[in-house]
């Protein structure tokens, strides 16, 4: 029978690679092995089960934890219980996360969750403040999340924000996260996608060339095969090729109707196709737009063709 710490290590290994089912099993085993921190490991197991969308398993683990001494009030268990409730509000989750002490072994995880919560509500500055002193630690998640928040803040273009500086910092932090994950063969493709998006928005054609370097395998680029094969990375690389005037984008990954239609409109424009054909693609994008920003981009495409007349 392996040692208890080995079970913890195995669970952390599975979770780091995004396999929540295996992580839930390992953490639950650690809790069942005994020890005074069993409630914490049951909470970790429940959080992993929720990550695997196994609500029933999470519920059983939470019930086991509540029956243990100190179970009702354990801060991480409270967080897991809030997340297990499909009707939970952002305020409830925020309160539960704030209640986890700073000296808890889960403090880094909780601060990352708080930063994510801020990010979901467009509170980029608060999210970044949560991660400020964590990015210097040899961890990938705080650096990657900081990069995503900076990228999002730059795209939204909030007043008083230095967009160029945000994009540069986003790219640097994403590459830091990429290298940290590469060190243990982790999922570095998420970080490459963020770095490539930041590069694409930063410097026009030079940025597009950098995207090709980041997103393609040697000898043309520096990506690992798993990074170059990632759907998000491939989509950004396709955008960069369009910016550089290439119209043969090769096979593209399946993606939402809006993105596919908008890219098709751009590609047809670059190819000098007839306006009525290009307009069809932009109208498809307009119909599939999920936000005012997306609709504005599609309308901009139609306006460039003088094809706005039949759009309400």
């Amino acid at each position: 029978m392996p040692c208890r710490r080995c079970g913890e290590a195995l669970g952390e290994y599975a979770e780091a690679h995004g396999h929540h089912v295996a992580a839930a099993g390992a953490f639950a085993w650690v809790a069942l092995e005994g020890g005074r921190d069993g409630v914490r490991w049951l909470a970790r197991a429940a959080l992993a089960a929720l990550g695997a969308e196994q609500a029933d398993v999470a519920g059983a683990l939470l019930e086991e934890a509540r029956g243990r001494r100190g179970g009702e009030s354990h801060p991480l268990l409270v967080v897991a219980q809030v997340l297990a409730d499909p009707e939970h509000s952002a305020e409830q989750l925020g309160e539960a996360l704030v209640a986890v002490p700073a000296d808890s072994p889960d403090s880094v995880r909780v601060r990352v969750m708080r930063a994510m919560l801020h990010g979901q509500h467009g509170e980029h500055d608060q999210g970044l403040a949560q991660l400020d002193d964590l990015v210097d630690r040899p961890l990938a998640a705080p650096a990657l999340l900081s990069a995503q928040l900076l990228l999002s803040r730059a795209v939204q273009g909030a007043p008083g924000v230095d967009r160029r500086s945000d994009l540069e910092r986003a790219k640097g932090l994403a590459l830091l996260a990429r290298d940290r994950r590469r060190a243990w063969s982790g999922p570095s493709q998420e970080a490459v996608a963020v770095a490539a998006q930041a590069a694409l928005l930063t410097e026009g054609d030079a940025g597009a060339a950098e995207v090709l370097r980041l997103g393609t395998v040697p000898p043309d680029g520096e990506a690992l095969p798993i990074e170059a094969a990632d759907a998000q990375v491939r989509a950004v690389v396709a955008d960069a090729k369009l910016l550089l005037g290439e119209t043969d984008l090769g096979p593209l990954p399946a993606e939402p109707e809006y993105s596919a239609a908008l890219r098709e409109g751009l590609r047809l424009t670059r190819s000098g196709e007839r306006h009525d054909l290009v307009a069809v693609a932009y109208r498809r994008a307009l119909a599939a737009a999920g936000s005012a920003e997306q609709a504005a981009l599609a309308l901009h495409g139609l306006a460039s063709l003088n094809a706005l007349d039949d759009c309400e």
Partner: protein
Amino acid sequence: MGAVHSVAAERAAAWRERCVALPPPVCAALERVGPPDADDRLRLLHYLDELPAADVVEDLEERPPTWLRNAVPEVWGGAG
């Protein structure tokens, strides 16, 4: 005395090198493994070394170690 220090320093350096090739929380957990369980730690490291990362996690989901599968059957649908 110097030789003992040298061996200890070499082992520590080898462990640090091994650790940076693991996700930081895994390294931290393994560093807390005490001497009575050192053999288990070596077995686990051997298991992680044997397979590429993607295969290890697939292995954990498809064929979790018996001790894990038996302890938490509900996670794996009662297999075991």
